[in-house]
């Protein structure tokens, strides 16, 4: 059924139902058929007998949608999609890198992670937490890991840099495989990174940092990075690093970088 015919029929039904039902349909016509939109409000408020009278409407939808391209969504999903589109538009080169070099299973996680970082930079911590939870629901530990890595800027600061050094502009398959193996190590094990969260206590944190220092040395890497967001985590991170550096004479340098006052701390322990 042509879209115009569909909308004409829809209008007639709406007019018939208007007096009897709280159900409302809104048609937004910006003089372009492609922009027409139907909003279906709360059918749950209607009684069973009222719902029965809506059969004609359901049949019309059925006919109308059978030959049309459509997208049906609820408002929360529309807001999320709008956020995703904005993030993608603001980060075209990073997105290009993600799609070209990272495993396909991670593409949508990284795009979500970039959205999370935008919310974090805007100081919207509640939304940051919500996106991280959704990433964890979707991909478990890997989702949480990519959320943390994206928020701390690891994609641009490390992963893209590692890829650039390993591959340059060449199309060398073995270099790409090496890159993917390092990438997996970063995402899967966060082998040279410690994220200080609220659930980690002082002793656990010291042990985790010491273990990361040991593994990083074994892998002949140069640095361990410790990230903390929020006053209490920042204080915990500083205390733990002080302890580790004091007990390990080979650790020769420590640099501390604040990002956003004292809310976001990045400590580098050079080995």
């Amino acid at each position, binding site marked *: 059924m042509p879209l115009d015919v569909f909308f004409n029929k829809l209008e007639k039904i709406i007019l018939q139902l208007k007096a009897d039902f709280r159900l409302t349909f809104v048609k937004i016509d910006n003089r372009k058929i492609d922009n027409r939109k139907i909003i279906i409000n709360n059918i749950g408020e209607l009684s069973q007998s009222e719902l029965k009278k809506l059969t004609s409407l359901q049949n019309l939808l059925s006919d109308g949608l059978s030959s049309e391209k*459509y997208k049906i969504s*609820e408002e*929360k999903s529309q807001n999320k999609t709008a*956020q995703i589109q904005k993030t993608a538009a603001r980060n075209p080169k990073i997105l290009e890198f993600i799609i070209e070099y990272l495993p396909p299973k991670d593409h949508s996680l990284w795009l979500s992670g970039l959205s999370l970082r935008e919310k974090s930079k805007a100081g919207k911590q509640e939304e940051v937490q919500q996106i991280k939870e*959704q990433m964890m629901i979707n991909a478990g530990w890997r989702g949480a890991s990519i959320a943390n890595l994206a928020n701390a800027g690891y994609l641009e600061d490390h992963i893209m840099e590692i890829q650039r050094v390993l591959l340059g502009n060449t199309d060398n398959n073995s270099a790409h495989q090496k890159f993917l193996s390092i990438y997996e190590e970063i995402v899967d094990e966060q082998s040279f990174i410690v994220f200080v969260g609220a659930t980690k206590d002082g002793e656990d944190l010291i042990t985790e940092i010491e273990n990361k220092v040991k593994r990083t040395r074994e892998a002949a890497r140069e640095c361990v990075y410790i990230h903390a967001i929020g006053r209490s985590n920042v204080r915990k991170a500083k205390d733990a690093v002080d302890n580790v550096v004091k007990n390990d004479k080979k650790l020769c340098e420590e640099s501390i970088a604040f990002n956003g006052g004292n809310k976001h701390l990045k400590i580098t322990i050079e080995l």
Partner: protein
Amino acid sequence: MLNITIFNNIATKKFVLQALNNDIDASGYVTDKLGNRVIDIDGMEILAKDLGMLSSGSKIFVKDNMVSLAKFYLKYER
């Protein structure tokens, strides 16, 4: 492209799903016209309460989850 915005409750979703020859089973999962549970963009069965988006073509069901919606965007809209 016809955009339809639906209210986020089960009755509204059921109304629209039935118009598309789908339904919701006793456990709350979205089913096809034969009563088999449909598979969403993440390769999982999908509860109607989690359904955030549905698009035409080969009828793609997407959860109201940032990562699932990002997957749809990257695959079909970018």
